[in-house]
């Protein structure tokens, strides 16, 4: 009796919770349909929905350029990060290299680092490298900043791999690189794909590096571009809402396609981090 009572309470609670979660999205959507330049109040379905706002926002926000730029940045960051973090995780977690523990602890040191802590010297460093206002200004630092978590993550996978596996391959005369590339990387696929999802998401949504290191919104990440869009169109609420919705659509689509992997990756990611 109390059991069914509690499960009903639970159901109601869940529905309320979901409503609170989607409320901001609904509000964005409804507001985006109001006439451009108006100042609509609260949640109110417009008498004459302006679907054209989305097309206009797409145009004035230059969304096509932003999408291309974000994809280029993700392609620059994620594959390289995955490869070098997997190599480092393999070495510190499986090869028992001398000094491996010290190197690993050095990486762990960076796990809680707030990006704001190093953004100032990073700016001057990137400037001296002549990379300011290029996509490299976001790509190269992000790879470095992702190393603590990525190495930690991949090492956690490699310490669970049995040593017999490598021993028997060694007997067959396999080099260390072949052992890594032919045997261990294929076995690490689940860990790798979760890490890939996390890195994609963090890169796509990266804001601070984008606004500090790149002035030109068309060379930024999606989140950085949204910041610039807000600065430019912040007074035209319906247009801002339409633009915001469009800008968060790509991640939403990717999330809905891969949602099961996403959820487990994010849960595991925060548990380990």
């Amino acid at each position: 009796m109390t059991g069914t009572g509690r499960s009903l309470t639970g159901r109601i609670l869940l529905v309320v919770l979901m409503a609170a979660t989607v409320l901001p999205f609904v509000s964005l959507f409804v507001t985006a349909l109001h006439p451009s330049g108006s100042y609509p109040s609260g949640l109110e379905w417009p008498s004459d929905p302006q679907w054209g706002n989305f097309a206009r926002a797409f145009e004035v926000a230059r969304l096509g350029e932003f999408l291309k730029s974000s994809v280029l940045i993700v392609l620059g960051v994620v594959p390289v990060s995955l490869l070098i973090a997997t190599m480092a995780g393999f070495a510190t977690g499986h090869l028992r290299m001398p000094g491996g523990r010290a190197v690993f602890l050095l990486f762990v040191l960076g796990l809680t680092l707030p990006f704001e802590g190093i953004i100032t010297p990073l700016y001057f460093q990137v400037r001296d490298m002549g990379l300011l206002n290029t996509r490299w200004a976001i790509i190269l630092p992000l790879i470095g900043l992702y190393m603590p978590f990525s190495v930690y993550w991949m090492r956690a996978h490699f310490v669970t791999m049995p040593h017999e596996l490598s021993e028997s391959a060694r007997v067959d005369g396999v080099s260390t690189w072949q052992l890594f590339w032919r045997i261990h990387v294929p076995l690490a696929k689940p860990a790798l794909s979760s890490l890939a999802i996390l890195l994609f998401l963090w890169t796509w949504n990266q804001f601070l590096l984008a606004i500090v290191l790149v002035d030109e919104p068309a060379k930024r990440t999606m989140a950085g571009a949204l910041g610039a869009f807000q600065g430019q169109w912040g007074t035209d609420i319906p247009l801002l809402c339409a633009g915001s919705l469009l800008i968060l659509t790509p991640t939403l689509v990717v999330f809905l396609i891969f949602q099961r992997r996403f959820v487990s990756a994010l849960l595991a990611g925060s548990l380990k981090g």
Partner: protein
Amino acid sequence: MTRSSNLVAAPPRPSTVVGPPARRRRRSRRTGWAGWLFVAPALIFYAVFVLRPIVLTVQYSFYDWNGIGASRWAGFGNYTKVFADPELYDSILHAFELILFFSGIPVLLGLAIAATIRRIATSRLALVARTVLFLPQVIPLVAAGIAWTWLLSATGVVNQLLSALGLGKVTKAWLGDSSTALPAVGVIGAWVLLGLCILLFLSGMSKIDPALYEAARIDGAGVVREFFAITVPGLRQEIGVCVTVTMIAALASFDIVYVSTQGGPGNATTVPGLEIYYLAFSQREVGPASALAVVLMVVVLAVVLPVQRISKEDKP
């Protein structure tokens, strides 16, 4: 070589997964340098783009520098400024106040909610909820900030709801009033983090032995006793994770504040990240910006390490 091949050919004994120490020493000598080659690329990126900037931040924090001209030794002057200038130390206090919202609400409310919906955690509704509750984690914080700025505005949905509930008197521009702006920013953070905490707690609860709950029921324990005697101790690790993640999010907050209030009204919602950004890139005061950055990095470590230690201790 023959010895190790004999070992491999022998049927594996469960206790020798790691192998005897003698063999380990031999192997490490053989693969030692290869190991360093494997670590090198990651280490180089990390050293150039993280370790070097950390060292430089510390170095800058002892100088007066505008980023262009000559720099001048300032000793601890920049640190004195951080703790003497109300605008700067207020930003640190604000970050701690945000912890109440970013950590307090998601962890406490999240625990209560997770405990309530534990029984229906495998229903179809709960599966849908799993996806929905994750949405705030997926979108850029900037987008969350923009959406909530609109919700919390004078004519926004929050006030509309309050009026509908007969609370029309308390409606206001929540982010524009210096007495409510910081809590309002906190609510945005709580919205972002609540779903993550609930799902972490639920996945932790699924690992608690159901027999414990059975036993508690037979002993006549009520819902509340059950919660404190079984659920909370069983979730120790998950609670530690949520507290850590949310506290870092609060102390290092930037995106949400930047788009929703930009530190205003007045200085009511400045946070260290925002002050560092303004000092370094608008006011060209690299020294104080770096001193504040060092303080921020130390504060984060000082707050996170004890939590890690408590939650990783062996369960009683």
